[in-house]
């Protein structure tokens, strides 16, 4: 597979990255279905989701643990499960899209629109979180050890076997 050139990251060899398929695309970017999930040492702990159709379209992602102030419980419905081809025991990863708030300059994470990746099938979907507890622009904080005051909170994914939205 040929290398692709991304404005933000330079040249990427698809063999160095994980390929992720998003059958619906991201909300507002429905025409982009194939992405590379790239890790770059200098951006750690951020990762990049780069569209293969247009490599200049790149999203920064991070573990929601950097943003949440309380347990982050997500629920997948039957439609999510179909789209992710989710089977029992599949390794799931939750990532949030990261941006810079232009008013404050803070690094913020979108806890209302996390991306769920099924690492077995390589399928991913952006789901919506309706809970008012979580913000679409939650400022990042520096992590401490788990269990310490202000420490990290768990992300859990619950699955319901009926269609709810």
């Amino acid at each position, binding site marked *: 597979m040929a290398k692709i050139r991304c404005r933000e990251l330079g040249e990427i060899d698809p063999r160095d990255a994980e390929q992720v398929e998003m059958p619906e695309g991201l909300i507002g970017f429905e025409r982009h279905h194939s992405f590379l999930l790239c890790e770059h040492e200098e*951006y750690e*702990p951020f990762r990049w989701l780069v569209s293969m159709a247009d490599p200049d379209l790149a999203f920064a992602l991070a573990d929601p643990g950097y943003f949440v102030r309380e347990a982050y419980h997500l629920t997948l419905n039957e439609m999510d499960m179909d789209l992710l081809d989710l089977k029992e025991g599949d390794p799931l990863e939750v990532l949030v899209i990261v941006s810079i708030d232009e008013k404050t300059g803070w690094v913020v994470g979108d806890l209302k629109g996390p991306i769920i990746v099924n690492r077995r099938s390589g399928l991913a979907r952006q789901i919506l979180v309706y809970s008012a507890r979580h913000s679409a622009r939650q400022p990042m904080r520096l992590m401490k050890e788990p269990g310490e005051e202000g420490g990290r909170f768990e992300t859990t994914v619950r699955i319901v076997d009926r269609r709810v*939205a």
Partner: protein
Amino acid sequence: MLILTRKLGENIRIGERIRIVILDIKGGQVKLGIDAPPDVAVHREEIYERIREENRRAANVSSRTLREAAQIIQKSRPTQKPSD
């Protein structure tokens, strides 16, 4: 806009692949069931719009600023990762 009146339990069919069922009507709320193929995303509109706006903002994130932020994080905790 096409406006239809439906009773409880009646359906609306949009094309061959989308069906909307009126499941319950209570107070000012209507509960809908939606059958749609997986390539048709179904969402509540207000949050959908919000996330679309956030995604558009995030698509223009500055890699330089993020690299600076990453360096601050790396310096503050050189060995620890959140996933460890």
